[in-house]
Structure formats: structure tokens, C-alpha cells
């Protein structure tokens, strides 16, 4: 077993070189490089945490924005609704007014026309009386040889017209 049989000859060299090379490892790698590697990792973790926090803040802001937008939208909707109903009301009123106007105009026209019709009828009846009186005078002349005055004929005809 060389570990024991060579012990007396080699122990000092073994210990010496072990200390030398482990010392080099410790100071170059352990003290020199490892802290830098760890710092890189810490930086990265910090950055990731910061990014996550920023993303979270952004999300919260977006949600608040959305909430505000919903509120504005609801308000605008309500206002639009009000406007629409007001317009509807106005339009209905305008329709009602113009309808009333139109019907008044039509009523006036109708009554004027009725008056005109009555007048015409009266005038026509007057004509009939005159014609009937003339005819009556004529008939009395021819049939009975009587000369009836125009006024008498008129009176006779009038009575018939009045009853007739």
C-alpha cells in the first residue's frame, strides 16, 4: 500500500503541494470568481423581480384604466339615453302640434265647403222656385186661360216648396 509504505518519503511533498494547489483554487476560484458568478445571479434575480413588479404595476394600471373607461361608458350611455328620450318626447310633441294644426285647418276647410254647398243648394232651390213659378204661370195660361200674376204664382209655388 504506497499510501503507507511511501508515507515517510512523500508526506511533506503531498501536504505542501496540496496546500499550494488548494490555496490557488481557493484564492483564484473561490475568492476571485465565485463572488462574481453569485453577483451575476443576484443581479439577474433582482432584475427579474423588478420586471415582475413592473408588469404587476402595469396590470393594475390597465385594470384601473379599464374600470374608469367602463364608468365613463356607463355615464355616456346614460346621457345618450336621456338625449334620445328627450328627442323622442320633443318629436312626439311636434307631431301632436302639427296634427292639431292640420286637423284645425281641415275642419275650417270642411266647414267652409259645407257653407259653400249650403249656399249653392239655396241658390239652386231659388232657381227651381222661379222656374216652377214660370211653368205654373204658363200652365195656368194654357190650360185654364187664366192670367196669373208672377207674384201669385210665386206664392203658390213657394207653399208647395215649403211643404214639399
Amino acid at each position, binding site marked *: 500500500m*504506497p499510501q503507507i509504505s*511511501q508515507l515517510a518519503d512523500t508526506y511533506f*511533498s*503531498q501536504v505542501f503541494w496540496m496546500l499550494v494547489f*488548494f490555496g490557488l*483554487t481557493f484564492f483564484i*476560484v473561490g475568492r476571485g470568481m*465565485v463572488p462574481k458568478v*453569485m453577483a451575476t445571479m443576484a443581479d439577474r434575480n433582482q432584475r427579474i423581480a423588478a420586471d415582475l413588479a413592473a408588469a404587476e404595476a402595469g396590470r393594475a394600471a390597465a385594470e384601473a384604466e379599464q374600470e374608469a373607461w367602463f364608468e365613463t361608458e356607463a355615464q355616456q350611455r346614460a346621457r345618450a339615453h336621456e338625449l334620445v328620450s328627450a328627442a323622442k318626447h320633443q318629436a312626439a310633441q311636434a307631431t301632436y302640434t302639427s296634427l292639431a294644426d292640420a286637423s284645425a285647418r281641415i275642419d275650417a276647410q270642411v266647414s267652409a265647403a259645407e257653407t259653400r254647398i249650403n249656399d249653392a243648394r239655396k241658390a239652386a232651390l231659388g232657381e227651381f222656385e222661379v222656374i216652377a213659378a214660370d211653368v205654373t204661370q204658363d200652365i195656368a195660361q194654357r190650360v185654364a186661360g187664366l192670367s196669373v200674376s208672377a207674384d201669385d204664382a210665386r206664392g203658390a209655388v213657394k207653399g208647395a216648396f215649403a211643404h214639399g
Partner: protein
Amino acid sequence: MAVEAKVDPMHQFAIEPLFGSSNWAIAGHNVAFTNSALWMALATVVLVVFVLGGLKREVVPGRWQMAVESFTGFIDSMLATNVGPNGKKYVPYIFSLFMFILFANFLGLMPLGLFGIHPFTFTSHFTATGVLSIMSFAIVLVVGFAKHKLHFFSLFVPHGTPVAMVPPIFFVELISFLVRPFSLGLRLFVAMMAGHVLLEVLSSFVISGGNAGPILFAVAGVPSFVLMVGICALEILVAGIQAYVFALLTCVYLNDAENLH
């Protein structure tokens, strides 16, 4: 057969000075640059290159950076769970310890023999693992006494011990505490050596079975080879587990020093 094939399973652990450095000495002690020292150097270089590749400091890491970061993150979380927030300052030491042992174990398992290079697993020498375990133990002692002064001895008396039991419990706990550096270093050394001996013994079966003729090769050589493949996979697992155990136990001991009970 001209030459009798002889496989010495222990030869792989032999330490030999390289580059004619066998006479190097400091204060009368021999510090020859051995094959063991060469593989320590290689582990250091490979580890430096590995971590250097992860030092690009990009926000979105590539594969290499991801690999290095997963190792540092692994050590960081191990210290966080075992020691707590006070453990952060030990990350450089535990990381160096874990990665150095891990790379040493893996490099020793590399099939470089195919290219004529013989890997040497210096973690299979208790002179090497002992340095690491004594270092860990020394840190525990220094931190413990610096932080808690003589209160550190209360570590050996668990809460709720009856007064009459305090001396024997203290004695038993003290022994178990003092055994820690030995168990720490020997565990790694034994695990690595056992695996390599097993592989070497099995490979000797393959070689001598092959030399002894086709029947013996089929009966002993081929099954041994299949078993070797499986054990190689197991050894890769052991290499990782032993590095992990060493680092984890150091964390547990540091927790005693940092937080007592």
C-alpha cells in the same frame, strides 16, 4: 508466454517524482513535484477553466454559465439550509472544497490510459485528504472559539443533560468531535481507493483470463469486464457523492461552530 502478466492493484497509488524534481526541498523536507502534485495542478487548472467559462456575466446565461451557476447555487443553498444566513461567507471555501474534490475524483476516473497517460487520483491518499479535513476542522475550531469563546465547549453538553451525566456525556461528545477530522479525511480516501482497487482487480481478471485461453476468458474475463463497466458508472456516482459528503459534513460542522445548538 514470454512475460507473465502481473497486475499490482496498488501500483496505481505509487507516488513518483516527475521532471527530475526528486531532490527539491524546503527547509530539509522533500517537496518533489510528484505525479500526485501534477494531478492536483491539473484539477486546479481544469477547475479554473471551468469556472472561468461561467464568468461571462450574461443576463441570459449560456449552457456553460448555467452549469457553473448551478454549482454555485447548489453550494449556496447547501450552506443556507445547513448553516443559515451566517453560512453565506463560507461559499468560497465550500465551493473550492467541493469542486476541487469533485474534479480530482473525476480526473482520476478519466480513461486517459487509452492515450498512454496514467491518471492519478490524489484523493485516494490520506496525506492529501487529511490536509483538506484538517483545514475544515481548523476552520470549525477557529470560528467556534472566536465566536463563542469558551462557551463553545457547551457543544459537548446537549440541552437537558442531567447534571450527573454531564462529565461522561462531555467526554463522549468530545471524542466524537475530535474524531471528525479523521472520519472526514479517511472516508474520502477509503472510498476512492476501494473503487480504484476494485477496478484494477477486475481488470487483472480480464487480462489474466485473456492470457489463460478462450475458455477462461469467456468464463472470467467477459463477466469481469461487464462488471467493470457497471462499477465505472458506480465510481462516477461515488466520485460525486464523496465530494458532496465532504462538503456537506463541513457545512454541518460549520453549523455547530456558527450556531452551537
